[in-house]
């Protein structure tokens, strides 16, 4: 019977091509706009590291003396000082841990095949790759010994390896970062997420870095951040050494804590650490305070998906609702015009349920066609976003979830819009129309 309903639905759509076209256009426009904003929102709000987002934590330390404020909602600084990051990296707790900052260099090669260019880099600990499940294509991370010696070694991204070395195994190759020769020790696979969740300070959707160098080089090479630095008191900073010893917040830190016990233990460690630091004159405050948020809590806390995006999605759904209201009106007119035929069908033995289903199948077909056309319109919309909003470029795409959702949303929306007209027509008293046909 279902196939028969599809056949009837198809005939009905063909019988009134203009009305059918208007309805398909309305649903396609609604779906197109909704899916455009929803796709961007979906890409923004998806869990960037699903397999372990609940086990990766970003600690925060309240280093400010009593009476000082910062702009976070809980008055905790977003980033860490260098000295705190250094200490936490050496803590005996936490499975993997890495302090990090964003920096950059002019990259040039010994040969003239590749013109020098500016390249973002991340100075971090070797655990970075374990923390974020980045597999190595060639080589490996630097060793502890290399880190301790502050050796000029580098892990590069697959994209950079393709650019510099044509994708071959470049382990052992050299290039210059500013004036220092660095040796490649590993080539790492790209992140599977567009979100730079581990450092959202300068936009959570900027490109990931292509160079990773040992954290110990920050001190040796006097590396400064290419990200944000925030202070809360006057400090006379005359050199990078001064900055490293200051109370300026300029580093990110992530630690992997595998269970609740580890989280608790880490919290205790942080409290102990702050109490210890108080003895040396830091943390001049009555109540010691720390923050420890997992990836998704951290992204919420940092408002990575701003309210603007949510408002945009809500508005696009309202537009879809307006489209549906129009469809509802057209369906009402169309179905009620067909009431005499429904009267005949009812007289010939169709139950109300069968009549209702017949019409719901028809509106579902409308939804399906409109949904498919809506996907095409959404692709057009996303192309427009990519063209005009560079920052959102990596996000302006429809993944498989969104591709499959579009027709489902369209069908569901049409079924909702079609329920009332279908219910109305199935309630037709057959006798009313049999005489008047």
């Amino acid at each position, binding site marked *: *019977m279902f196939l*028969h309903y599809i056949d009837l639905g198809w*005939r*009905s759509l063909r*019988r009134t091509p203009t009305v059918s076209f208007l309805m398909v256009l309305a649903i396609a426009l609604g779906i197109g706009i909704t899916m455009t904003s929803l796709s961007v929102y979906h890409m923004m709000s998806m869990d960037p590291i699903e397999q372990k987002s609940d086990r990766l934590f970003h600690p925060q330390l309240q280093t400010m003396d009593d009476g000082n404020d910062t702009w976070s909602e809980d008055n905790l600084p977003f980033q860490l000082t260098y000295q705190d990051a250094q200490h936490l990296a050496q803590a005996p707790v936490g499975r993997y841990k890495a302090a990090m900052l964003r920096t950059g260099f002019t990259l040039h090669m010994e040969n003239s095949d590749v013109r020098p260019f500016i390249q973002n880099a991340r100075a971090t600990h070797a655990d970075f790759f374990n923390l974020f499940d980045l597999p190595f294509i060639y080589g490996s991370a630097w060793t502890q010994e290399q880190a301790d010696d502050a050796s000029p070694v580098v892990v590069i991204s697959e994209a950079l390896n393709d650019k510099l070395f044509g994708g071959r195994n470049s382990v052992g190759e050299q290039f210059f970062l500013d004036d220092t020769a660095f040796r490649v020790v590993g080539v790492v696979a790209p992140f599977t997420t567009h979100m730079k969740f581990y450092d959202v300070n300068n936009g959570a959707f900027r490109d990931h870095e292509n160079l990773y160098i040992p954290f110990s080089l920050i001190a040796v090479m006097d590396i400064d951040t290419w990200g944000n630095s925030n202070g809360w008191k006057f400090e006379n900073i005359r050199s990078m050494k001064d900055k490293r010893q200051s109370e300026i917040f300029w580093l990110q830190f992530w630690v992997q804590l595998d269970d609740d016990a580890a989280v608790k233990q880490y919290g205790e460690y942080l409290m102990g650490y702050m109490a210890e630091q108080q003895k040396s004159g830091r943390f001049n405050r009555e109540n010691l305070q720390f923050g420890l948020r997992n990836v998704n809590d951290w992204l919420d806390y940092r408002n990575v998906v701003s309210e603007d995006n949510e408002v945009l999605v809500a508005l696009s759904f309202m537009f879809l609702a307006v489209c549906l209201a129009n469809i509802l009106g057209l369906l009402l007119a169309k179905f009620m015009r067909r009431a*005499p*035929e429904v*009267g*005949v*069908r*009812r*007289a*010939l*033995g*169709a*139950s*109300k*349920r*069968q009549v209702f289903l017949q019409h719901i199948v028809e509106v579902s077909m409308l939804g399906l066609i409109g949904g498919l056309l809506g996907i095409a319109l959404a692709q057009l919309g996303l192309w427009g976003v990519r063209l005009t909003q560079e920052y959102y470029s990596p996000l302006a795409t429809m993944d498989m979830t969104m591709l499959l959702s579009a027709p489902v949303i369209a069908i569901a929306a049409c079924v909702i819009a079609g329920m009332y007209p279908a219910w109305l027509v199935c309630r037709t*008293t*057959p*006798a009313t129309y*049999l*005489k*008047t*046909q």
Partner: protein
Amino acid sequence: MLTMKNVSKVYQTEMVQTHALRDFDLEVKEGEFIAVTGPSGSGKTTFLNIAGMLEPFSSGQYMLDDVNVGALSDNQRADLRNQKIGFIFQGFNLIPDLNLYENVEVPLRYRGIKAAERKKRIEACLEQVGLASRAKHLPQQLSGGQQQRVAIARALAGEPRFLLADEPTGNLDSLMARQVMELLEQINRDGATIVMVTHDPELARRAPRNIQIVDGQVADLTLYQGVARQTDRAVVGG
């Protein structure tokens, strides 16, 4: 087969109550061919709609094959209608998008009959009404008489025991009306019970039993039956 006792039908609006049927009593026996006549607005069509379970009645009792129709749900009435009743309408009521084959198929689909069996029945019914060669035609490609024959084929396809015809020849010229009437008579001889509403006295006279509805009730036909005995003909109202 059909028994109505004290059946009433009241159409209620905010201002007016209209009694379409009042204390309507009728018994129809298996195999009868009854012509129902009466003036316009007398309740003939209301009676037919209630008999066909196309609309509910306000009070009274209606038994169809010992089933108390008043106690059935809407879906049960739809099933019973589909199983036992065939309809022939004055306006044919063919579905314009469906060809003849598909039109005849409609009640069979709702009954859940398998495709092979449907095909057999449809071809037989179209053959019976002389339109087998036009199975793929759309209704609008046929004359009025041919369309009514398709409607009859559709009514017959479900092999109903009870055929309700509402002025089946009302939209036809006299030649076609005669052909349709002959077809109905043949169907009746084959065993179906037929109740036919008509305005046409000539058609009514051809039915073995006549009833007249006046003001929503079966009129007392004693007088008319007396005359009929004298003239050996049934007398019917216009």
